């Protein structure tokens, strides 16, 4: 009898147990009778017929073909030369002023950008960009905390405030 015990003559189809959970869920999720198939949504008449034209209108237009200036070429060169000279002087004057940099952006504009953009930054993302050493408490808090408030908090939440005292040598 012992020899029969260790030999199982039955087999299962390939990957039967791997697929079992999925097949069970399929059976359990068979079409429910109480959920209607019609949702009640409808669309305006001929809506789909006009869709392509509406989308097409919003696509970037092709660049118009360049028409050769032909006999006007010499006038074109003269006009271009004058324009280049004028632009050169304007450019010299323009460059005399400071270039616009990051510092010129208003804080409110930067805040508005972060608020209105869908960047979905979470604390983990921020932590990956900014190292802990570079962070100051003021970077994450809009109102500053006074020393009195910190002491009051510690007083209320730490059993023995004296234990928190340390000398820099301890590090």
């Amino acid at each position: 009898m012992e020899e029969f015990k260790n030999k199982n003559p039955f087999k299962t189809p390939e990957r039967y147990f791997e697929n079992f959970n999925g097949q069970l869920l399929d059976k359990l999720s068979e079409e429910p009778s109480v959920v209607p198939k019609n949702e009640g949504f409808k669309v305006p008449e001929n809506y789909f017929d006009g869709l392509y034209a509406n989308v097409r209108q919003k696509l970037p237009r092709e660049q118009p073909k360049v028409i050769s200036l032909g006999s006007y070429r010499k006038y074109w060169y003269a006009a271009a030369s004058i324009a280049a000279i004028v632009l050169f002087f304007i450019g010299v004057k323009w460059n005399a002023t400071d270039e616009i940099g990051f510092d010129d952006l208003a804080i409110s504009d930067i805040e508005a950008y972060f608020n209105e953009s869908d960047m979905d930054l979470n604390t983990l993302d921020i932590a990956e960009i900014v190292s802990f050493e570079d962070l100051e408490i003021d970077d994450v808090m809009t109102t500053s905390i006074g020393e009195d408030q910190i002491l009051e908090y510690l007083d209320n939440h730490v059993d023995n405030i004296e234990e928190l005292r340390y000398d820099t040598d301890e590090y």
Partner: protein
Amino acid sequence: MIAEETLVSQLQQKSTEAAAFEILVDTYKERLYWHIRRIVLNHDDADDVLQNTFIKVFNNISKFKGESKLYSWMYRIATNEALTFLKKASKRMSISDGELQDRLIGNLEADPYFEGDEIQLQLQKAIATLPEKQKLVFNMKYFEEFKYEEISEILGTSVGALKASYHLAIKKIEAFLKD
């Protein structure tokens, strides 16, 4: 019907892109519309999102490398566009996603493009109680009749997880409607 590879190749060439794009829009407009409409509920919003979806497809078709099927790539764009649309709407109105869903369902009763009765209104309320992923899976399986393998390619979730999500969604909706 034109083969997908042929359509993609025509879309990626300047000389054939316009004609191919018209075929693409005609082929997918209704399916994508209903997919989006089930997320945003309102026709005008669905129209905006659908048009943006096609514009994004047109502008990015040169980057499409054929690593996934064209339809699943377009469904991904449509899903992202619809969900982003809702997120922006709730942010603009300074309300939570749940509150926005309540408002959208509340508006259905006065919507000229919704002719559902009380049961269909209850169904929308039931769907609104589901988490985002379950909602998508339920709509795609129950109404759009996708296979799990297709949903898996679009949403990037394993078939096993999708089956579990769908089962949970069905149970919750049934319980809601029976109450």
